[in-house]
């Protein structure tokens, strides 16, 4: 966190929602930067603004105030493709008509890679997330935890610069949480950065840096 440009930086980002006459301040002047090769966690109670922060970073939502920078520039965040930012949303958005393998390989397929060319990389992430025996099943034929790991595999498959995950261990048991965490670690070791919104104490322990949120503000940071 020295003078060098971070991978992504939020500066004084605010976002309000209007619920009837009431205004909800989902984000209140948030400053956050994510460095290259860093594994950052966001923790905080439900409703503290974690998902809003992620949506802003993905470009699915525009901040009312403040700026979002990407590698020193300020592109339209929504236009950054899967090899830049890959996401594991809270609702996973798997394609139910595709097998897990096809879901995982989808980013490669849509970027024009042929089936045999992508088989290797798909195999790697499948192994990493311990999904080998399930690849021919369809999403609704596997458990929620397995679906979550599939979505994570899909996020990792193109080795993006930033992986954003919203509660990726919500449906994992203790053992699988480690698997998931190992996958993040593996990504970081190849130079990627990860931003993980989570509740899980076990995950929190292993993170490089943890940002604590409450009521739309960052209230603390642990390393």
């Amino acid at each position: 966190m020295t003078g060098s440009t971070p991978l992504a930086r939020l500066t004084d980002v605010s976002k309000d929602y209007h619920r009837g006459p009431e205004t909800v301040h989902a984000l209140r002047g948030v400053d956050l930067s994510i460095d290259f090769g860093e594994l950052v966690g966001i923790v905080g109670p439900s409703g503290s603004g974690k998902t809003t922060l992620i949506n802003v970073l993905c470009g699915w939502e525009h901040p009312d105030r403040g700026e979002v920078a990407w590698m020193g520039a300020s592109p339209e965040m929504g236009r950054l493709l899967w090899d830049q930012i890959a996401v594991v949303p809270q609702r996973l958005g798997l394609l139910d008509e595709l097998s897990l393998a096809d879901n995982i390989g989808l980013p490669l397929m849509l970027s024009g890679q042929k089936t045999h060319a992508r088989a290797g990389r798909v195999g790697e992430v499948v192994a990493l997330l311990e999904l080998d025996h399930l690849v021919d099943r369809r999403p609704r034929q596997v458990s929620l935890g397995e679906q979550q790991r599939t979505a994570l595999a899909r996020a990792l498959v193109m080795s993006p610069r930033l992986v954003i995950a919203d509660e990726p261990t919500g449906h994992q048991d203790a053992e699988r949480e480690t698997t998931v965490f190992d996958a993040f670690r593996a990504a970081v070791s190849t130079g990627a950065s990860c931003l993980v919104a989570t509740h899980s104490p076990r995950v929190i322990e292993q993170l490089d840096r943890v940002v604590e949120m409450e009521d739309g503000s960052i209230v603390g940071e642990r390393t």
Partner: protein
Amino acid sequence: MRTIEDEIKGVLTEELRGVPHLGPVSTALVSAISRVSAGEEQKDIRLIRRDGALDHVEKIAEADDPRHGIWLADVTAEQIGAAPGDRIVISGPARKKSTRVAGLYRYLPLDEPRPYWQGFGELIYRGTSDDTYPASFAIVPSDEYYKLTAGLGDFPDIRWEAPLEMPDPAMSEVVALVDALDRVAATVTASVERGELKVDRYSFEIGTLLELVRSTATERIESVTPVVDLLAVAGGLVALGVMAAAGFYLVRRRIVEARSLSARGIGPLAQGLRYGLEATIPAGIGTAAGVFLGFAVVRLVGPTNDLPLEAATSELPRVVLMAVIGLVTMAAGAAFAVRRAEKEIAEEGDTATERRALVVAMGFAVAGVAVAVILRNHLSDVEDIGLRDPMTMALPIGLILCASVVGAMALRLLLPQAGRLLRDRSPSLYLASRRLAGAPGMTQVLVTAGACALGVMLYGITVGSSVKVSTQAKAKLFVGSDFAAQTSSAQQPQGLSFPSTLVSAADGISAGDGFQQVTLVGVDPATFDGAAYWDSTFADVSLEELLGELSADGDPVPAASVGEPLSGPLNGGGTQVPLRVVETLDAFPGVSEDENAVVVTIDNFHEILKVIGSSISPPDQELWASGDPEMIERSLLENDVTLLRTVDTGVVLDTPGLQSMLWTLGVLGALGAAAGLIAMLGLFLYLQARHRDTVIASAITRRMGFSRTAEFTTSLAEILGAALISLGVATAAGLPVAALMHVQLDLRPTLPPDPLLVIPMMTIAATVAIVGVASAISAWRVQRSIDRADIAQVMRT
């Protein structure tokens, strides 16, 4: 002087006073047939007296004093060579009398139809089975009629009429009226017998055309009833299917609840029963609404406006029974769904179940085909297959249903294979194929339902138009062309806007040793080709070649034979004319199926008749023309061609058997189209609704570089694919069954040509176009709903 008519009018008016809906009584006197002549030529006429008759004809010419004498039809006058004012002789049953021509009116069959003459139709127009027109009317003024007929020794019929003042009579009203009239008839007849009413030398007959109305209506009801019954049964089955499906999907929507109830030991039956009981009140309301709606619809569009409200009360037990059966079916559907939910194991893919279902469906299909083949062989022995037997309707529909189910399933199983080919070519199409292959049950049901409905539609339309075209072809063979008229002019009329040809025929010629009767047909090689109906199945050579062979010089004269082979030379005039048979034909226009004929050129025809003509009746000469019969008839009349007797193909098409068959097939086609429309609409709406769930997937795939256009292509390919599968299966199921059945529905199987199969390309093309447009709209709506969705919002929930 009080005439017999006045007498009867008085009595009837008195008697009919109590009968409702009848206007004032009028009477007419109708003679038996007598003959009229002005010189040598004699023609049949029928003397008639009727109030206002001359106000309801088109007067063409009249004598200086048109009040005396009789009015002749123009055609009759021309035939006997009489003009207004000429003296003519009428030969009655006993004596002859001389009178004069008061005027000429347009021959009624060639006049526009007039309501005034409606009750006399059978005396004016040619019946479908008659060759000739009835004798024309000779209209006689009142006082003269009595003198004339008395002089002729004629005993005319007295006809009476009372107009029916009931614009839209119901069947029950007609029946009541017929009964009332029967009573009046009995009373009047009794008073004639007792001598109270003196009818003198006149024969008095009392009857009513309403009787005909009643019998026609009864016949129509009888021909419609099996179809309506079949539709009712089919409708009932569909309704039960819907109820079962409703039960099934109700449970599927609350599957978690169903599972947890099962876990607490509440079994499928108990749960199904609960759904059934829950649905009682809605079902009751629905049934009541259905009955009400049924009444409204029948009142509005028929088939009867005579539906008493008691019908509902008397049918109540049946309605209630149906509703209860529906509820039980629904409960069963729900119970089945619960059971499936209990057993549902994540591991078991859909394909295994599907394969099993496919095998079962194929079993049904094979059984169906077997039944069809057996029935087909059995049916072909039966005379007059007709559609009265609902089996002939139900069987093809059953076959189409089986074929559609099998086809839709097979395609679904094949889709993944096809998808694999697309995987590296077009991600859009690959995704669409995956979506289709993995589509949930509802899509399958709708695709299959659409296939069944459209299959039935195509079947109805194909068989309907095939039967029509085949019958038309047969009719043309029977008539010779579209239109045929007996004519006296030996000259081919010139300057007509349509092709025409003169054909002569002399029948009853003995051939060989005299045991064979043949008809000698003379055709004009120059014009026959263009005007006569010809089908390549009639002969081994083309018509052109045939005419060429017949035109060749030679002794004996070249001829073509139809029917039994010619047994020897033609006999007549105390000598024999040998013929050289150059072609043997399977059929020839204008030659009926049980007739033996030899065809020669018209020149040879006349040469032969010169030799044998003295011993046979004079030949017929017909003018054949192709085109719209009405236009032809008008144009010929305008060209002053005298037409003595006309036939056109319409006469043949007008038979009740054909009409009821075409009606039934039309109803089938329309029902299929309507059901297909509903299924397609359901499919489109369902696929659209399903896509609302894919907003997140779409947000993600767009980040993967999947463009809006590609997304649209996927949606379009999926929706269009589903619709086209439906339509394709429908075509593959409907057309072969139509091909199988249209032969069975041939009304005249022995008459060539063989039944033709008309594939309704226009309908198919129009359906594809409509489906294409609807799919594009649907895909566009999907796209719009994705575009409009607030992704951030969707992500959070």
